[in-house]
């Protein structure tokens, strides 16, 4: 059981097929300085749940999220023994099929709304565009749905906000608009890559509650990628902890204190705590052996 936990597997639930099933995912980049192996054999299943992926910079968490949509940069290659989404093999899907999946079936929210919204189009136009791109609807119909969506993401006076440009909205509102844009097509899976890192804590909570409601009401699967272990564990159902392109440990978010792996424990300990004292924080010591141990386990799991 413990071994299954370590590799990110959960016993198959007979009632529900996983929305996304990934086995032995590798992402490699060829750079002028030589090859970089960013993701090394990641395996996990996503059901209708909130799955968190936590790691420090360079752990491969974002590349894992991007690989699901095959959005890896041009110099990168993706390898996996299995990458299924809702019965479709994402590894075999052509460029055209991928385009129809991106945004309409699996959508992605990026970190900073300042850079992910088009600065020369009003936010309403952008939401409506997302709707028209994936579904055959008329302009007035798309506008109506965009306004309804703005209301769903709890924006007051949607009519007014519809005609604003991205620079006229605050960070929290920008992120709500991003969420509206991503949800208007009713996707089955949402990948949120650090959706709240650029926001203030209270706004962060409000945006998360919005994602929470959407997941509950629409029965979506959510992948939340973040560097903030505490935030992710208080929000998600299950947490994957990544380091060096590998999954170190899969945890039930409610039982973070039961973490077994020294990396997870180290990450938890080095956070300053609100109720803590002023003593020196324990510093995380990295063990190079971590990079190999999970690979062995992943190999075993693959054979099973």
């Amino acid at each position: 059981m413990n071994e299954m936990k370590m590799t990110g597997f959960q016993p198959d639930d007979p009632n529900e097929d996983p929305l996304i099933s990934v086995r032995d995912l590798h992402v490699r980049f060829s750079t002028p300085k030589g090859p970089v192996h960013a993701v090394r054999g990641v395996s996990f299943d996503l059901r209708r749940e909130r799955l968190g992926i936590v790691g420090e910079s360079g752990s491969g968490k974002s590349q894992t999220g991007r690989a699901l949509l095959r959005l890896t940069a041009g110099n990168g290659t993706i390898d996996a023994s299995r990458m299924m989404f809702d019965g479709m093999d994402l590894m075999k899907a052509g460029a055209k099929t991928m385009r129809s999946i991106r945004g309409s079936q699996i959508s992605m929210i990026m970190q900073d709304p300042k850079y992910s919204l088009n600065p020369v189009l009003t936010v309403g136009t952008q939401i409506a565009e997302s709707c028209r791109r994936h579904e055959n609807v008329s302009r007035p119909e798309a506008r109506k749905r965009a306004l309804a969506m703005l209301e769903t993401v709890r924006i007051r006076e949607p009519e007014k906000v519809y005609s604003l440009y991205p620079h006229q909205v605050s960070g929290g509102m920008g992120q709500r608009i991003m969420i509206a844009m991503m949800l208007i097509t009713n996707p089955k899976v949402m990948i949120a890559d650090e959706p709240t890192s650029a926001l203030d804590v209270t706004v962060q909570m409000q945006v998360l509650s919005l994602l929470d409601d959407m997941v509950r009401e629409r029965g979506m699967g959510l992948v939340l990628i973040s560097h903030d272990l505490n935030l992710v564990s208080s929000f998600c159902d299950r947490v994957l902890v990544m380091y060096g392109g590998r999954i170190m440990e899969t945890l039930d978010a409610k039982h973070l204190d039961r973490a077994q792996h020294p990396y997870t424990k180290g990450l938890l300990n080095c956070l300053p705590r609100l109720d803590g004292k002023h003593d020196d924080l324990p510093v995380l010591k990295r063990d190079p052996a971590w990079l190999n141990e999970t690979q062995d386990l992943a190999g075993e799991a693959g054979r099973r």
Partner: protein
Amino acid sequence: MIDIENLGIVFGSGKSQIAAVKNVNLQVAEGESYGIVGESGSGKSTVLRAMVGIYSHWTGTIRIAGEPLKAKRSVSSRKHMQMVFQDPYGSLHPRRTVDDTLSEPLIIHGLKNREDRVLKILKEVGLGPEFRFRYPHQLSGGQRQRVAIARALILEPRVILLDEPTSALDVSVQAEILNLLSALRKTHGLTYIMVSHDLAVVGHLCSRIAVMNRGEVVEEMSEEQMRSGDVQHDYTRQLWTASQGYDRAALETFKEFA
């Protein structure tokens, strides 16, 4: 050590005039570590920038060790107060070596024994002499922030102003930098003012914390209050609750503070 009375800063004019900081008072004793928390736009960084002289059009009085600061600073008065900025990727000159970066303040202030001082300060911030001739792109984020701290410290100031010194770093690196900062404060008897949006980080390093909202200090709390969450002002309580992690029930009580 630091005595700020009635500090105010206004940006813009006419219709678009914004009072970024209104009527801020704070006293920090020598060797104390004082924290300012607030959300973006609360004016917390602006207070530091006024103190260090980046903004000169403030009103009110700022006294450092009894000396009132004027809008125009002399070179020697700048020596006593140094600042560490948020983003070590932006605050170090990309085409200057660590040695150049650390020597420049010494040249400006006409200090001798530059080589000795640079080597000594590198050692103090936990970097070896091998880092002396490296460029910023050859350093990791944590090492860069150590260089930025070394640059502030090399003039042997009495006050260091820290503007979100760890928010661009990974949590494990953040722990190292926080440990370094508290060790340096003990050995040099420095006075810190640290600004952050992260209540836990400020609470770790500071013994008193001011909470700012919309340019005003709404509450000053002690470390005991911060640990227990026994705070007076609603805004502080909301911030404290939000810092505890995602809690659906608590969220319903959140409101806007204007």
